[in-house]
């Protein structure tokens, strides 16, 4: 169980202090798929980075299984939006994917597990390729495989499919859902794409901006497994879409302090 409570992040640079996140409060039960959406600049990435321990919060707590998060916890892996920059260009695919576990297990074991996850994300056969020899979509698959090889409990993804074309995005969405449904993963998925958020999630958190606060927590009551055509033709999908759009477009200044 992930519990975020009173989370704050403020920057005090060049004069005026800027509060990016203010009093963020929510819980995520295990195995849930939660998307976080919000207008640009609402602090979605900052929130994710604070939970992952990559950015230090200015206040509040993050508890994972009742233990406070300090630094970058073992059970949490962060997947970057800039996938091409996060893969190591000096390592071939298999050694990139093996990176998180290569210290913990033998060389052969690491390679075997890496191979398994490379297969799971649909990159079988590309083990010997360098990252820059792969397409954007393949690079992001590689980054996901690398995140999964560690078998984390929590996968934090920061707009992972934002820079990809629509077709690739759909493919990777379905791949991610497939992996999620067959493991014990809890996913926090930041996106600016409302349709994507609805399609993937059990639940969508909406972040208002300036400062970022949770202004809505919407359960997604669409049947699983999701389908790119069926789910999106569902009337409920449109209703949720309208609801979420309104929340994002309308400035959320009416939040009580």
């Amino acid at each position, binding site marked *: 169980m992930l519990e975020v409570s009173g989370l704050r992040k403020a920057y005090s640079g060049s004069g005026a202090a800027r509060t990016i996140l203010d009093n963020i409060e929510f819980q995520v039960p295990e195995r849930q798929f939660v998307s976080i959406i919000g207008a640009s600049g609402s602090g979605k990435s900052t929130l994710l980075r604070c939970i992952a*321990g*990559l950015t230090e919060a200015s206040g509040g707590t993050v508890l994972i299984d009742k233990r406070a998060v300090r630094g*970058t916890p073992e059970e949490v892996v962060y997947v970057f939006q800039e996938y091409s*920059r996060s893969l*190591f260009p*000096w390592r071939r695919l298999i050694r990139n994917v093996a990176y998180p576990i290569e210290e913990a297990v033998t060389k052969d074991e690491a390679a075997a597990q890496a191979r398994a996850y490379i297969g799971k994300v649909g990159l079988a056969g590309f083990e010997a390729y360098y990252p820059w020899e792969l397409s954007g979509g393949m690079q992001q698959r590689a980054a996901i495989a690398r995140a999964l090889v560690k078998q984390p409990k929590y996968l934090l993804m920061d707009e992972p499919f934002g820079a990809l074309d629509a077709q690739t995005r759909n493919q990777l969405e379905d791949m991610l859902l497939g992996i999620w449904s067959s493991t014990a993963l809890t996913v926090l998925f930041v996106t600016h794409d409302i349709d994507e958020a609805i399609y993937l999630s059990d639940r969508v958190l909406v972040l208002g901006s300036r400062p970022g606060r949770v202004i809505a927590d919407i359960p997604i009551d669409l049947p699983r497994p999701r389908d790119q055509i069926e789910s999106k033709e569902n009337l409920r999908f449109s209703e949720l879409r309208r609801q979420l759009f309104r929340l994002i477009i309308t400035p959320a200044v009416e939040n009580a302090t």
Partner: protein
Amino acid sequence: MKIIQRLSGVVFLLALLVAWETIARLGLVTPDQLPAPSAIAHAMATEILQGDLAIEFLRTTRRLVIGYGIAVILGTLAGFALGRWRLLYAASEPIIEFFRPLPVIAVLPVAVLLLGLGDAMAYSVIAFGSGWVVLLHAMDAVRGIDPVLIDTGRTFQASGFRQFSTIILPAAAPQTFTGLRVALGNAVIVTVVVELVSGFGGGLGGYIGEEQGALRTPEAYAGIILVAVLGYGIGRLFGVFEGSMLRWHRQMMGR
């Protein structure tokens, strides 16, 4: 075609040599100014086979390798440290900016005063003359590492050492190697200059100085050519080493 390209260099060189030989034989220049290539070749052969030229060559090589080696070790260590820790850089910056542009010739008398005339002085001056380039490149390399790479290490709980060996080192390698390559060229020059100017202990620099002083021009030229051979040879060796270390980078850049 590729073959024509490669041969063109050799052909051009041969043409130059022929022209040079002709000019010398026609007496357009005196032997004291510009000896004929044949005369130089003859002098070189004699000096190597019957004289000490080969020993001087090896002596210079030894000084170069050790002095450069010191520059590499100290330069990369210091460069990495300065790149990693801002405070360290801020503290050292005035010193670096002061010493870096100093010409080696200016430093030489001080070095002789402090260390006398000997190999210790030679190594120090060579290291001083070539180390700054290494330091600056290594520092820039570490500074310029993509933060996403560092964050990747962090999300996988990479310890300080693991971050250094698996991320910082390979990421900083290409730019650092550039610094090493430039520094090698500097080191060759500095080595010969030290030997020539201080005139204490032979080597190719000392040899050239001696032969010039005695007006044995073909022999002096022979020494100069051997310096070029040394520089070229060691540069090629370095290139092979760099190539094997940075194969991934070359491929990535499409070379």
